């Protein structure tokens, strides 16, 4: 179990913090994930909820690509990331359509006010 600052570099020396390793990318993706989660759980506006979901998908993608670069997976991680982007595009289109429909019927996109299945 190696601590963060004690990952042996190729030269056998112990590099401290500043040299970018896999962990740095994972930390960025963790921060992105928690911001996305925060947007999803606290926002009332449905559009901002979708933005939070996009942040979460992006953080997952960073993980895929980082493991593809460092984990010896060759290009498999990048291929999966392309599929994630495709699905994100489809999801955004469908979700926007649903949100527009909600707005037409309820005149609001605040998710806590849209609690009825029928008008």
């Amino acid at each position, binding site marked *: 179990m190696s601590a963060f600052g004690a990952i042996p570099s190729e030269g056998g020396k112990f590099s401290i913090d500043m040299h*970018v390793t896999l962990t740095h990318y994972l930390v960025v993706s963790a921060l992105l994930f928690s911001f996305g989660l925060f947007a999803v759980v606290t926002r009332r506006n449905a559009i901002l909820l979708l933005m939070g979901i996009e942040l979460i998908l992006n953080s997952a993608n960073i993980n895929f690509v980082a493991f593809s670069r460092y984990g010896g997976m060759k290009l498999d991680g990048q291929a999966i990331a392309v599929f994630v982007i495709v699905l994100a595009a489809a999801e955004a289109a469908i979700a926007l359509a649903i949100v527009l429909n909600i707005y037409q019927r309820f005149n609001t996109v605040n998710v806590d006010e849209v609690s009825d299945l029928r008008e």
Partner: protein
Amino acid sequence: MTLYDAAFYFFALITVVSAGTVAMSRNIIYSAFSLLFTFFGVAGIYVLLNADFLAITQLLIYVGGILVLLLFGVMLTNKVIDVELKTGVMQSWPGAIVCGMVGGLLIVLFRITDWNIVQADPVLTATTFSLGEMFMTSYLLPFEVASVILLVALVGAALIARKDKSVQNQKGF
């Protein structure tokens, strides 16, 4: 600190700060445009991770497609005469605590795990050709399924979003 590291910290800073703005800003337009910078920062991170094709795809689809869609959504679901496009928040303190705990847990896990790093410094090569080959060979089925999903999403989105008179007549249904 090499140039690579400096570039990483630059893009990481852009990504994290603008993601924070997306999550925290009360103004929807600020959030939407911060999302633009987040996508740019993530594209830069892809470039640093030797994923050139993915970086361009990120710019084309996220910035050119999804972000424009989201902006359309913002514009279409708010009264244009409203100068301030504010958004309410609910339970922001419990949410912040839980999300901070989740993020902290993830970071601690990422740090203490002894990752099996195979390739520390691979030779940088263009990935487009190999990716295209993979989509036509080992990832052929997911590739075709993705195309069908996109078609279904296209038709479904158009069907859901349009105004339908017959649905309006069935209000009491």
